């Protein structure tokens, strides 16, 4: 019996948000739903469910992918209470090697809406632990997921796919960290509580900013936001005296002429004893006069500067993604060799000949002593040892034959081989086997030993 790895799912490219939101699983739903799945989709041997805002995917192993996929469609429709025709056309399906490739690409954030975004690996790990809790994983998915994590780590480590800012607010925050060592003792002033200014302020607060001043024409809005973010609201007519304590100044006020020019900031700088000021101008028309950039220790970035940084780093990530695709291709090949090796199961024959080899070895070791025996005594010993070997083998082989199923078929075969040491050569068998079977570090040694069987 052969088993096929496959993926059934949809993502931000294949399905619009209206479809994705109806199929999405809340984090707490996943384990119960997976337990349900076993009943709805009996032909699925192993399965994991990855649900994020950009994708819903079922990673599964089954003897008959076509049938299993059909069952999984029914599962999605039933479990999410959505008519199948709503999402069916958005589904894609990958099988075998392509499924491995897809999973590796997802983990490495090559299939993400924002290339290289770091959350997906955590989400994939969550999907894995949820499946472990629901007890729907078997050997193949254990291995495949661990490998996917390793591939993701490799890609992140050896390419710059996660570098650079991919949004205006994160670009602004990145710059703040290049200017200031610690943000904890800095004061941020929002001049205008626009949406992008708010987003930037939120990120800065998350990085430890404790002093936040919010100025807005509509004071109510400033007060609301100040309550929410733990800042202080200041009225629009009264903000100038506070400028001297602002290390980061974020402007997003609708204004015809710049609010602040060099004549405003220069005296403030002297008062601040030239401690650096970071001016982020998110306003159009601009809030801060461009001449401010010429002042010592003043760093002025307007929305275009930040936008250019974002465009550049997105282009950069796309270039890095090409390198990452090469790594993924290599990893897919390596992993696929292991997976296809697993399905050729000459196990029983394998174990028998291994036993014979072990017997031969023992006979050779005691050659001198055996030679001294009478022929009939020698024969007796031979039949006795053969008897023992056969008794052991009988149990193993009947058990293997009986269990045609999955966790029982291929897996039992692999386990039997492991337990009896027949996957090793004799010399290796006599050394200590580190038993990396279910361990995470298997990725370092892609089963070289199997080739030497």
């Amino acid at each position, binding site marked *: 019996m052969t088993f096929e790895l496959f993926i059934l799912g949809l993502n931000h490219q294949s399905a619009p948000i209206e479809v994705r939101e109806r199929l999405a699983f809340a984090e707490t739903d996943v384990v119960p739903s997976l337990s349900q799945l076993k009943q709805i989709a009996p032909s699925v041997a192993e399965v994991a469910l990855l649900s994020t805002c950009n994708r819903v995917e079922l990673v599964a192993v089954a003897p008959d992918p076509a049938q299993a996929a059909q069952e999984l469609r029914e599962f999605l429709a039933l479990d999410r209470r959505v008519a199948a025709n709503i999402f069916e056309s958005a589904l894609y399906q990958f099988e075998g090697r392509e499924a491995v490739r897809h999973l590796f690409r997802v983990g490495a954030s090559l299939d993400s809406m924002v290339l290289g975004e770091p959350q997906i690996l955590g989400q994939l790990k969550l999907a894995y632990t949820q499946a472990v809790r629901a007890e729907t994983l078997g050997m193949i998915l254990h291995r495949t997921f661990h490998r996917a994590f390793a591939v993701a780590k490799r890609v992140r480590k050896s390419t710059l796919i996660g570098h650079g800012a991919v949004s205006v607010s994160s670009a602004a925050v990145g710059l703040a960290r290049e*200017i*200031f*060592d610690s943000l904890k003792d800095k004061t941020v002033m929002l001049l205008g509580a626009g949406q992008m200014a708010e987003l930037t302020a939120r990120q800065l607060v998350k990085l430890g900013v404790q002093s936040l001043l919010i100025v807005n024409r509509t004071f109510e809005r400033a007060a609301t936001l100040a309550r929410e973010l733990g800042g202080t609201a200041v009225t629009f007519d009264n903000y100038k005296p506070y400028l001297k304590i602002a290390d980061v100044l974020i402007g997003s006020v609708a204004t015809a002429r710049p609010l602040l020019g060099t004549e405003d900031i220069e005296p403030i700088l002297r008062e601040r*004893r030239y401690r650096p000021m970071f001016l982020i101008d998110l306003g159009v028309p601009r809030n801060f006069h461009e001449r401010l950039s010429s002042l010592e*220790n003043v760093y002025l970035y307007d929305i275009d500067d930040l936008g250019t*940084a974002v465009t550049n780093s997105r282009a950069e990530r796309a270039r890095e993604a090409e390198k990452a695709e090469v790594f993924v291709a290599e990893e897919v090949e390596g992993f696929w060799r292991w997976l296809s090796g697993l399905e050729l199961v000459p196990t029983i024959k394998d174990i028998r000949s291994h036993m014979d080899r072990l017997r031969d070895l023992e006979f050779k070791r005691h050659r001198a002593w055996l030679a001294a025996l009478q022929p009939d005594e020698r024969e007796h010993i031979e039949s006795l040892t053969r008897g023992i070997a056969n008794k052991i083998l009988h149990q193993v082989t009947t058990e293997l034959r009986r269990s045609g199923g999955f966790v029982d078929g291929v897996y039992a075969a692999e386990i039997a081989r492991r337990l009896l040491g027949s996957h090793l050569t004799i010399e290796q068998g006599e050394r200590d086997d580190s038993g990396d079977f279910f361990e995470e570090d298997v990725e370092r040694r892609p089963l070289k030993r199997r080739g030497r069987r």
Partner: protein
Amino acid sequence: MSTLWLAPALVLYVLALSLFVADMVQRQGGLNRYALLALGAGAISHTMDLIARGLEAGNIPVGNFAQSLSFLAWIIALASIVMIARFKMPAIGAFTTPVIVVALGAAYVMMPNEAHKLPSTLRSAWLPIHVTLAFFGEALFMLAASVSLVYLVHESRLKAKRSLGMIGGKLPSLEKLDRINYRLLGWGFVLLSLAMVTGAIWAANAWGRFWSWEPIECWTLVTWLLYAGLLESRLAAGWRGRRAATLTIAVFTVLVGSYLGVNLVYPGKHGGSFG
């Protein structure tokens, strides 16, 4: 005299230099560990050389210009290692290793072959104290100038809005660079002051007076005053950032100029060395 250790030290420093520069240029990074290792290995080899020469001289080996250059290079190497490891600032290595290589390279070329005995007037317990303090002070000023260079590079990138990506991400923040610069200047100033005091005491013992208008004494006084002014401008007027960095480099060039000028042109009683 020649030892087996000087050439390997020089080679290792050159290796460290190229690794530090490669680490700066290469975007992926990760070479700085090896660069620091090479620098450390070079310093060990260099230490062996200095021990051999010191045993021969019966004191720290600063009996001629070549030896004093080598000693200075060694102290800069030690200070750089501490600095790079302590502040996790491999970028500094790309600025200090060239100085180490040039100083030790010159010392290597100029190193006289015959054995060198210190003149008896210089054999004193004050020699290691005075020279080491002075050299450590200078090494810290040199590190301050390097940090200032890093600051200027980073600052101009930020001003030109080219910071995101490239080396930008590997450089420490401006605030941190500025703070480290200030600390280095402060400690360098303390050490230089102590070097002057110990020098004066020693001079009083050896020559009978604290101050003898030696060229080195005059120039040291000038640089001491300049550094005092630099620290004062930060404390009193809040001159920091770009301005402080530029001034740090300017004052350091005066220091280097006086060091070279005094040693090569008017050796005076410091005898062709700081000894």
